[in-house]
C-alpha cells in the first residue's frame, strides 16, 4: 500500500567523496505529513543527504526511497514529485507575480486548464489576490517568501524541501508561513526543512541532528528536550552581578557535574548532571530550573560527539 509507505526511508545511506565520508550510514524514517527539521552545522552532511534524497547524487552505499521511488534509480520521478525552496528565493524580479507562477507551472509541465487552476490556487495560498500584476521585485520580504513557496509547490508536490525558509523574515510573517506549512502537512504533504535556526526548528514535528556525516539524534522537539533532561541533566538559570566572573569561578571550583555554562543576557545558565546542582554551585546563586531550549540540546550533542571535555556525567 503506497499511502502507508513512509515519505522518506533510508538504510545505511552513505556517500564518500574520495577518502572523505560526507554521509555515514544515515537511517531515516519520515512518515507522510511530518514536518521534519534537519539540523546540523555547515559541512555536517545535510546538503549531501538532501541531494541524494532528491536523486541528484548517487549514494556510495546504502539505499533509500522518497515518495515511493528509489533514490538511486528513479531520480527523474522523484524530482517531478518534490518541491524545493531555498532561502535565496529563485524568483524573477522583472516578472509579475502571476508570470513567476506561470513560469514555474510551465517548467513542471502543467498545461492549459490545469496550469490556470494551479496558478490561481497558489495566488490564493500566498494571499496575493489583487496583486497578480505587481512586479516581483517590488514585493516586501515576507510577501516574496510566500510567493517563493507558492512557486515551489505549484505542481502539488508530495514532498517539499525547505532551506532556512524564514531566515530574516519578520516574526509575524514567519508565523504565518509556518501556519501555511502546517496546513500543507495536514493535507498530506511531507516537509523537510534544513536550518540552523532553533526558532525554525520549533515549528517542526520531528527533528534530526546531523554531525560529521552521522545522524546523532532524532525525535520531536519536546522529546529531545526531555531526553536531554534524562540523559544529561537539567538547565538552571540565575541572575548574578558579574556573570563572566561567576562562570569562571564555577568552572574553577567544580570538579565535575556541570556540562555547559553560558551567559544568557543578564543571567547565567548551566546544564548540570542529574536532578540537582552540585552543592557548591547550588549555594552560589538563586537558581531556577528552566526548560532546555533546542539550542541546549544541539550544543550538548555536538560537543559530546566532538569529544569535547566535560561533556559526560559519570555516575
Amino acid at each position: 500500500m503506497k499511502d502507508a509507505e513512509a515519505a522518506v526511508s533510508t538504510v545505511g545511506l552513505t556517500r564518500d567523496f574520495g577518502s572523505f565520508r560526507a554521509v555515514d550510514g544515515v537511517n531515516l524514517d519520515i512518515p507522510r505529513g511530518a514536518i521534519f527539521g534537519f539540523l546540523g552545522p555547515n559541512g555536517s552532511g545535510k546538503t549531501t543527504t538532501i541531494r541524494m534524497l532528491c536523486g541528484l547524487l548517487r549514494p556510495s552505499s546504502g539505499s533509500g526511497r522518497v515518495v515511493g521511488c528509489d533514490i538511486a534509480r528513479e531520480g527523474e520521478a522523484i524530482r517531478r514529485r518534490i518541491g524545493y525552496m531555498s532561502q535565496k528565493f529563485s524568483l524573477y524580479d522583472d516578472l509579475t507575480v502571476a508570470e513567476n507562477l506561470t513560469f514555474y507551472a510551465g517548467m513542471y509541465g502543467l498545461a492549459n486548464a490545469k496550469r490556470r487552476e494551479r496558478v490561481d490556487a497558489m495566488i490564493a495560498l500566498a494571499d496575493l489576490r489583487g496583486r497578480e500584476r505587481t512586479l516581483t521585485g517590488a514585493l516586501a520580504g515576507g510577501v516574496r517568501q510566500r510567493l517563493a513557496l507558492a512557486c515551489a509547490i505549484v505542481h502539488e508536490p508530495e514532498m517539499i524541501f525547505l532551506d532556512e525558509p524564514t531566515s530574516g523574515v519578520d516574526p509575524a510573517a514567519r508565523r504565518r508561513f509556518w501556519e501555511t506549512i502546517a496546513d500543507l502537512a495536514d493535507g498530506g504533504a511531507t516537509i523537510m526543512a534544513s536550518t540552523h535556526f532553533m526558532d525554525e526548528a520549533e515549528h517542526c514535528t520531528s527533528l534530526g541532528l546531523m554531525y560529521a556525516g552521522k545522524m546523532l539524534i532524532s525525535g520531536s522537539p519536546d522529546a529531545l528536550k526531555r531526553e536531554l533532561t534524562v540523559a544529561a541533566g537539567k538547565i538552571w538559570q540565575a541572575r548574578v552581578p558579574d556573570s563572566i566572573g561567576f562562570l569562571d569561578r564555577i568552572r574553577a571550583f567544580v570538579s565535575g557535574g556541570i556540562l555547559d555554562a553560558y551567559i544568557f543576557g543578564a543571567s547565567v545558565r548551566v546544564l548540570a548532571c542529574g536532578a540537582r546542582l552540585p552543592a557548591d554551585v547550588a549555594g552560589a546563586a538563586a537558581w531556577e530550573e528552566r526548560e532546555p531550549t533546542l539550542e541546549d540540546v544541539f550544543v550538548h550533542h555536538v560537543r559530546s560527539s566532538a569529544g569535547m571535555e566535560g561533556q559526560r556525567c559519570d555516575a
Partner: protein
Amino acid sequence: MISVRDAHKFYGNVRALGGVSFDVERGSVFGVVGPDGAGKTTLLRMIVGVLSPSSGTVDARVGGDGSDSKRRIGYVAGRFSLYEDLSILENLALFSRLYGMDAARAASRSRELLELTGLLPFGDRLAGRLSGGMKQKLAIAAAVLHEPELLVLDEPGTGVDPVSRRDIWSVLYRLNRGGVTIVVSTPYMDEAELCTRLVFLHKGRVLESGTPDEICDRFPHRILRVRTDVPETRRRLADFPSLSVSSFGRTVRVVVDGADADALPRLREHLARAGIAADVDAVRPTLEDVFVLAAESGRDVA
C-alpha cells in the same frame, strides 16, 4: 554613550528609517533586532559614523571630542570583509598597521585576542579556509585590535550554527566585561534574548524597547501552551475563543485576553470534549510573542 534622536534616512524615495530615537548606555550589550529591510544596517552605519541621517541626529560619544573618535569604534560588517588569501596572523598584522599600532603592542594584542577567540592554534591558516564561525571570530578580533570603546556588529550570528554562535556570544560578553560597549543587530529572537537592552525595529521604526524582561512583562495577554501528539489539535482549536492560535510542530500556543482568568480550565475542557489528550499550561510570553503582536498592531513606541 550613543544617542539617537528622531533619525530619518531616505534613499531616494525609499524611507529606510522613519524617526528612530533611543539611547545606548556605556557597558551595554545592546540589540538592534528586526527582520531584513527593517533599517538595522542603516542604523548601525550611522552609529559607526559612515552614514549621516537625512534628518535627526545620531551621536556616538567615544574617546572624548575630536576627530579621532571613529578610531575608538570597531565595526564588524554583515559580510566577511577580511582578506581570504591572507592568514589569520597576516590579517591581524595588516589591521594593526592600518590602526597605526606599534609592532610589539600589535603582537601582544593579537595573541591575547586569538586566545580569547580560540583561534590561537590556527594563526597560519588562510582566512578563506576558515569555517563561518571562525571567520566571524577573526573579524571580531580585527575589529577590536585597537581596543575600541564601542564594538558594532551587523548580524554576527547569521549563517552560523548554534555551537559557533554560542562561542561568538561568549567572546562578545568577555569583551563587554573588559569595558567594551556592544551594539549588535540580529533578526533572531533567541539572540535578542541575549542582549541586556534592545530595540525592535520594523519598517524603519522602533516598535518596542527595553530589557528582554521588561518587554515580555509588558505583553498584555496570556499564553496557553498545548502539548500533544494529536496532529489535528490545531484545527480543533479553531473554534476556541482566543486572540490567536499558532502551531509550533505539535505544540500549539493559544493567546487569550490577560483578564480572562479561567481560560486555562476552559481550554482543558474544550480539548477533553474533543477527545484530545494534551498537556496544557500557561507560559511566559517570548520576545517573539511580543513582536508578533507589535508588528500586527503596527503601534510605535517613542
